[in-house]
């Protein structure tokens, strides 16, 4: 006899079938297509595309952007989580909501706001022009836009983690005479290091793959574009555009698969909370 909470076998197989079909068409198939299309013209072509001048410049810029954005947002995430979970102050709920704004806002707006400040017609445009400082269509602009888009990633993972851990151990360390730095490095950091890593990895994946904000701020100057924009350039290009675009896209695909593997590993070990959650 069937248990009251179990479904009919027909329903069960039907639903499992639907899930597999959906996952295959929407998730597995695109991944396979990227790999197939990337190697469409053979491995030699694939390798040449990756080693081409344009690809290498884009990869270098993307790495430099992530190198600036991930530490900044991590520092912010840890400091925000420390402030929010260890102290009572007025406007705390508002602060948490404000941190989450970039999750709700279109990435294009993340680029637009900095264009409005630093662009030629922006607030500081004339001043920057006369002093010869370039922010838009240059490295600082791309860093700012990317920092906006990936802003909440570390904080949003750490706040619930540190909230669940409480502050009793920190207070105990304090009574034993630890100072602030000892407290953080010897007591708090060992407890949250996996959560920090988790946030950094998500932040990094998003930073390296960011398209909307960067396409506003990077313009189309050849040596000032990141990997996702270079993919678009290849795609729009006439000379073997598709295989080139897919070859470069396969790097980002590899990055996202590694990210996913680490993320899932940390979640299965219950070291981190899933970032997609409502509470």
């Amino acid at each position, binding site marked *: 006899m069937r248990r*009251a909470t179990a479904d009919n076998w027909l*329903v069960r197989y039907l*639903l*499992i079938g*639907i*899930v*597999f079909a*959906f*996952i295959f068409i929407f*998730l*597995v*198939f695109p*991944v396979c297509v990227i790999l197939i*299309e990337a190697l469409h013209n053979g491995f030699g072509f694939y390798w040449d595309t990756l080693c081409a001048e344009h690809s290498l410049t884009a990869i270098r810029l993307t790495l430099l952007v992530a190198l600036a954005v991930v530490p900044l947002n991590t520092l*912010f995430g840890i*400091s*925000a989580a*420390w402030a929010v979970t*260890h*102290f009572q*102050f007025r406007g705390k709920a508002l*602060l948490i909501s*404000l*941190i989450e*704004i970039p999750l*709700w*806002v*279109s*990435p*294009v*707006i993340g680029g*637009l*706001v900095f*264009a*409005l*400040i630093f*662009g*030629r*017609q922006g607030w500081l445009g004339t001043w920057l022009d006369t002093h010869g400082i370039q922010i838009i269509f240059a490295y600082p602009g791309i860093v700012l836009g990317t920092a*906006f888009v990936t802003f909440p990633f570390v904080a949003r993972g750490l706040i619930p983690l540190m909230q669940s851990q409480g502050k009793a151990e*920190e207070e105990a360390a*304090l009574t034993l005479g630890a100072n602030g730095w000892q*407290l953080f490095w010897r007591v708090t950091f060992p407890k949250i290091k996996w959560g920090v890593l988790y946030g950094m990895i998500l932040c990094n*994946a998003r930073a*390296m*793959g960011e*398209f*909307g904000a960067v*396409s*506003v701020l990077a313009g189309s100057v050849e040596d000032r574009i990141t990997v996702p924009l270079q*993919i*678009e350039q290849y795609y729009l290009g006439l000379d073997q555009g598709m295989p080139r675009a897919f070859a470069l*896209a396969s790097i*980002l695909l590899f990055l*996202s698969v590694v*990210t*996913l593997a680490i993320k899932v590993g940390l979640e299965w070990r219950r070291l981190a909370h*899933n970032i997609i*959650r*409502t509470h």
Partner: protein
Amino acid sequence: MTVISSEAKRGGTPAHGDFVFNQPRVPSGRRRKHILPGFHLTLGFTLFYLSAIVLVPLLALLLKTVTPNADYPDLSKVVRHVFDVATDLRSLDSYRLSFGLSFVAALINGFFGFIAAWTLIRYKFPGKKIVDALVDLPFAMPTSVAGLALTQIFSKHGGYIGQVLFNWFGWQISYTSWGILIALTFIGFPFVVRTLQPVMATLAAEAEEAAACLGANRWQTFRRVILPAVYPALLTGVMLAFGRAVGEYGSIVFISGNIPYLTEITPHLIIMKLEEYDYVGAAGLGLVMLLMSFFIVAAINLLQHFVIHRRRLA
């Protein structure tokens, strides 16, 4: 009996003979308020960085829509221009496309996300852990990469699925609004599943067993017992997917073809305005999108509030 001397009330040490019982310590002055160190440092840096990266830039956008400049020398002209751009036919078509398709994609995700969450929580089948891990793929994968792959799959020229659909039925997916719909469905999928899973995992089996004992068949149990319990989470997940889809740009730009009035989404129109050096117009469209996002967030928070409140009553 609790006797507190006036000294102890002010936070000083109780005098000999005072009987202190379960009385919370009253903080004396500012230093005692925060026991752990680093309050000013961490909150200060948090507020500074938040302002520099998020708040001041967003404020700059708001101010741009009301500040006169060389092209629009007084306030009424600026506001007039913002209004004109925001209610332009091309803009209205882009809102319809962005919000309409995001809504439909969110509903599709609600349906498939529900099935996926249910299957992952209730059934045992081979490959379950892999399916569970793959659900997060749209979240980990750069949207432009996903967009590129979907464009290729659904292209009528040599696309793996697109060619078949075009040759057999004459359907065109890539470079039409159907393509946008597919891309939006792709990026919103994890939100519904991940919102539903924890709620489904905590459903009480007793309620379903009681329904079965009372003679309900499985469908009735589902509709009357299970669905009402997970409905708020489903709605929240659908709205999260909707909110995410409205602002999406990276995956759409490849698959939509960006034809004005037909397949042009609002974020793309903002970039077009910027390329025409119409900063005020771009800011105006940005403002419209910000307001829309704000309403979506407010709706989700209201929903959460309502759910928590109802649970407390129950």
